[in-house]
């Protein structure tokens, strides 16, 4: 599996992401600078977290129009796999490679704490490391994670099994209106979604930050083992 991690000015989670892939595959992903105009030869492109271009205008808006994103779009259109975490998810929605948008957290506060996620996505390498309905812990760190989309879009995502992850309690209960569970106020507690072909996935929390015991747990590891099993 050949993985590339895109680095924009202001990206700050690229090394965490690289380490997570190193842990499962023993291989070091390639770093891709945002001005690069191709991503040829890769199996997976990852857009990591951070504050690309200072989050000016809207989170992810500038990055979505950078040269490399044209290449990432072409890559995805040809069936390439793309994972966006946190700022990467924001970039994918701004680039309209995933539906919806991420608004300011409902409570207005930057959230830096653990959350629990329920695995709901179907037929995707990004969820195949878990069983459907599994619950896992993931750190989150974002100010704009309040997922929103038109009701018919939300219905479609749910109907097609394209809600990859939902915020829930440690016991797996989803509570949309509870600010201790659905902390950023996301529509239908959605934490991550899949594209129509299920090869593009975006999520707000950071599974890459719980992939080794020294980090406090390995709850996020199945994201990476699932990807690696699928892509070799």
């Amino acid at each position, binding site marked *: 599996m050949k993985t590339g991690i895109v680095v924009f000015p202001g990206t700050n989670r690229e090394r965490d992401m690289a380490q997570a892939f190193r842990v499962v595959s023993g291989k070091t992903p390639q770093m891709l600078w945002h001005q690069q105009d191709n991503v040829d030869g890769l199996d997976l492109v990852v857009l990591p977290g951070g504050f690309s271009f200072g989050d000016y*205008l809207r989170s992810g*808006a500038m990055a979505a129009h950078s040269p490399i994103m044209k290449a990432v779009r072409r890559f995805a259109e040809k069936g390439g796999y793309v994972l966006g975490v946190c700022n990467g998810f924001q970039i994918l929605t*701004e680039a309209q490679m995933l539906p*919806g*948008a991420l608004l300011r957290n409902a409570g*207005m506060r930057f959230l830096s704490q653990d959350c629990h996620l329920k695995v709901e996505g179907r037929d995707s390498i990004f969820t195949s490391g878990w069983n459907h309905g599994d619950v896992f812990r993931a750190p989150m760190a974002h100010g704009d994670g309040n997922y929103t989309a038109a009701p018919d879009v939300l219905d479609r995502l749910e109907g097609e099994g394209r809600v990859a992850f939902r915020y829930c309690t440690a016991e797996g209960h989803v509570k949309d209106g509870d600010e201790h569970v659905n902390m950023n*106020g996301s529509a239908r507690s959605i934490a991550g979604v899949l594209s129509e072909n299920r090869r593009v996935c975006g999520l707000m929390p950071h599974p890459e930050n719980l992939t080794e015991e020294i980090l406090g747990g390995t709850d996020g590891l199945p994201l990476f083992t699932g990807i690696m099993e699928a892509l070799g």
Partner: protein
Amino acid sequence: MKVRVFVSLKDGVLDPQGKAVEHALHSLGFEGASGVRISRVVDLHVKAENAEAARKKGEEMARALLANEVIEDFHVEVVV
């Protein structure tokens, strides 16, 4: 020509910032303040033959970058 692009959240899209400002206004004694929404104004200059062409350019820019039409509405004025 100077163009002004107004970008605001669509009706029905939650504006936590507006809500926070509304609370602050209440605590300052402006109890009557309601429906506070925060918008963005982008001023810029464009090269255009006439006002209509300038407005069109502003709209193109709004669609391409300045507004996210999933959550935001915009309108464009030519300031002269």
